[in-house]
């Protein structure tokens, strides 16, 4: 036991000390922080007010109303929100094309020069019956810009039409009021206070964390075994520890490092999430379209299920990666050999998207008993609608058995593999190694 502990301690201490670990631990939250602040920052700052020339070829006040609506549009909320558009209206009844052509040379130029329009919007009398208007500008490819412009114009055109047939706008607005379903999750016969959306976010986040941890830390297990083979340190270790102890120590050690790093990240994410408003303000960003991301509260039972399956899944996949590492002598070889393992990780992650739609489908029920996939499937299903205790227990049992089987097979491959150098092992070698006494 002391020997295994020595291996675990070395793995953890030497890994946590590396520059890579410290940098990635700090840089990732920085990236998260940027992701929180940046969208709001971009919306309020870099877009800025757009100068639009409005060519008004209408015979009534449609052009004027559109001008008013555009001037009223704001970016963000609050008293110091800046206007979305600066509009200059050109009356052009009957000669819309000439006016437009005279404006085109000034479009797309720097805003400081004369004119300097971002675009030219042409409305005419036919806009009301046909719903057509024309826009000529530099930003026509921007889906968002065009949509916003359409949204600004739409209510005015609709109101005009209704007015034309003598219907009161207010009445219509009242009668077309849609339905807004407010969702609250019920769990074990109690209201949880979580919305459907946050349950979704949680389910997605769990799958992603597992996916990420398996790929990153799994390949760390793999490459470090190859390094040990290359530096021949394995031989010294193999003389005092059994290969199984070596593998167990390594996998556990890397697992602890993974938990430390994920723990730090989770803590920072929770802090960022709950102090989002202040952080945005500190950067001088208005809290634009509400919270950009919110961390749903994770119920204790789900946390237990997730942690259990995370650990089982980690052991299972890390052992598989260890076997791959033992079979190869170079990292390049390993990159190819790890494909089958990666495919399972990917399959597990992708299955989440299918299962989110219907977490109780027969597919979901089958996957609950596939050991390589349960770490992804079960926490997801549990987060959406808890499994029957018996089903959960059976799934844990199957996963533990599968994990033990894979660890056993992996340790047998590892045992022979770590002492064989040179060419990478073939499938035949692998089978022979497993069968060697």
């Amino acid at each position, binding site marked *: 036991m002391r020997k295994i502990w020595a291996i675990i301690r070395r793995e953890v201490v030497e890994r946590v000390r590396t520059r890579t670990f410290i940098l990635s631990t700090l840089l990732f939250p920085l990236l998260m922080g940027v992701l929180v602040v940046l969208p709001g920052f971009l919306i309020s700052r870099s877009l800025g007010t757009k100068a639009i020339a409005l060519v008004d070829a209408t015979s009534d006040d449609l052009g004027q109303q559109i001008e008013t609506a555009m001037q009223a549009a704001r970016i963000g909320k609050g008293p110091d929100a800046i206007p979305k558009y600066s509009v200059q209206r050109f009356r052009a009844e009957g000669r819309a094309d000439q006016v437009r052509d005279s404006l085109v040379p000034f479009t797309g130029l720097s805003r400081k020069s004369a004119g300097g329009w971002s675009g030219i919007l042409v409305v005419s009398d036919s806009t009301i019956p046909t719903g057509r208007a024309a826009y000529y500008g530099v930003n026509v490819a921007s889906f968002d810009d065009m949509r916003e412009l359409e949204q600004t114009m739409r209510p005015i055109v609709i109101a005009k039409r209704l007015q034309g047939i003598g219907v009161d706008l207010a009445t219509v607005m009242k009668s077309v009021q849609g339905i807004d379903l407010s969702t609250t999750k019920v769990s074990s016969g109690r209201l949880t206070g979580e919305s459907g959306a946050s349950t979704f976010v949680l389910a997605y986040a769990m799958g992603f964390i597992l996916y990420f941890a398996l790929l990153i830390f799994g390949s760390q297990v793999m490459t470090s075994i190859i390094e040990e083979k290359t530096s021949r340190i394995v031989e*010294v270790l193999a003389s005092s520890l059994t290969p199984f102890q070596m593998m167990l120590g390594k996998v556990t050690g890397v697992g602890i490092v993974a938990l430390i790093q994920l723990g730090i990240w989770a803590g920072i994410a929770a802090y960022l999430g709950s102090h989002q408003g202040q952080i945005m303000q500190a950067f001088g960003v208005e809290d634009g379209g509400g919270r950009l991301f919110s961390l749903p509260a994770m119920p204790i039972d789900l946390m237990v299920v997730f942690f259990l399956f995370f650990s089982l899944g980690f052991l299972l996949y890390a052992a598989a990666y260890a076997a791959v590492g033992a079979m190869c002598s170079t990292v390049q070889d390993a990159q190819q050999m790890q494909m089958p393992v990666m495919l399972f990780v990917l399959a597990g992650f992708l299955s989440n998207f299918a299962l989110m739609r219907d977490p109780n489908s027969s597919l979901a029920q089958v996957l609950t008993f596939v050991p390589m996939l349960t770490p992804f499937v079960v926490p997801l299903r549990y987060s959406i609608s808890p499994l029957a205790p018996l089903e959960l227990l059976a799934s844990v049992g199957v996963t533990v058995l599968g994990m033990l089987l894979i660890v056993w097979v992996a340790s047998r491959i590892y045992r022979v593999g770590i002492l064989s150098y040179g060419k990478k092992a073939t499938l035949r070698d692998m089978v022979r190694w497993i069968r060697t006494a």
Partner: protein
Amino acid sequence: MQNSSVVKVERVTKRFAGHTAVDELTMEVPAGGIFGLLGPNGAGKSTTIRMIMNIITPDEGRIAVLGKESASRELSERIGFLPEERGLYKKMKVLDMLTFLGETKGIRRSLARTKAGGWLERLGLADWKSKKVEDLSKGMQQKVQFIGALLHDPELLIMDEPFAGLDPVNSQVMKDVVVEAARQGRTVLFSTHIMEQAERMCDHIVIISRGRTVVDGPLGEVKRQFGGRHVALTFTRNKDRAARVLADPGLIGKVDDYGASAEVELAPTGDADRLLRALIQEDVGLARFEIVEPSLQSIFIAKVGPEAAVAPAHEVVHA
């Protein structure tokens, strides 16, 4: 199994994909003293040592270490091991590395640290203990590896080619360490293909070739068996005439010719007096004529010479 032998190898066979590396090998390492496992490249020395260390398992036969079969890992606290393929964690600090190695042998962390510090001091590496292994020169890394095998004060020290790749100064330092370990009553088993080294250090030798024992016994006894029929010669002139004398098959069995000097083994029909007379007659300016114990080198070549030439190039482990 109770007797004074520390390592007992009984009719052990190990086959690899292409060939038989060790073939019904039997040997016993007596307690105390230095035991040399000698043989040409590819003779099966490393394979034998790996099997003794239980890193690989024999296909047939039995191995007992310190009286227990296939338990060298449980006994790791009592065994020091220096593998042929040296390896350290390059990014670790020297003292941490040694502490870790001590811990994997089964001794307490604090004890391992103290012992490692003491050894670093003794081998002149005290200033380097907080440096990373990769910052050390190759010779220093070898010393660190050596300490790794010794720091838990094992009663049995097993070393595979311990002096390979060492410069003469370091080689001397390591030799002193090994000899002192033996003087303290520990048993040292080491493999080598450098005969001069073995000749000066070993109390007991086994020479293996192509996986089989060809010579086994205390060094003195082995030499006596081969002795009496060897003559060391040095000439000062007429080397061609001397060569003619040495070419007489009725007189000379084998010649180990170094040009101006030679070591010869007399033929069964020849004797030393006749050889001396013949050489004086040919006026070769004899500077040395000595009936000697054969050198281990000549015993080695006599025993494995013809076979060594066709031995497999190098041992490769793949089960």
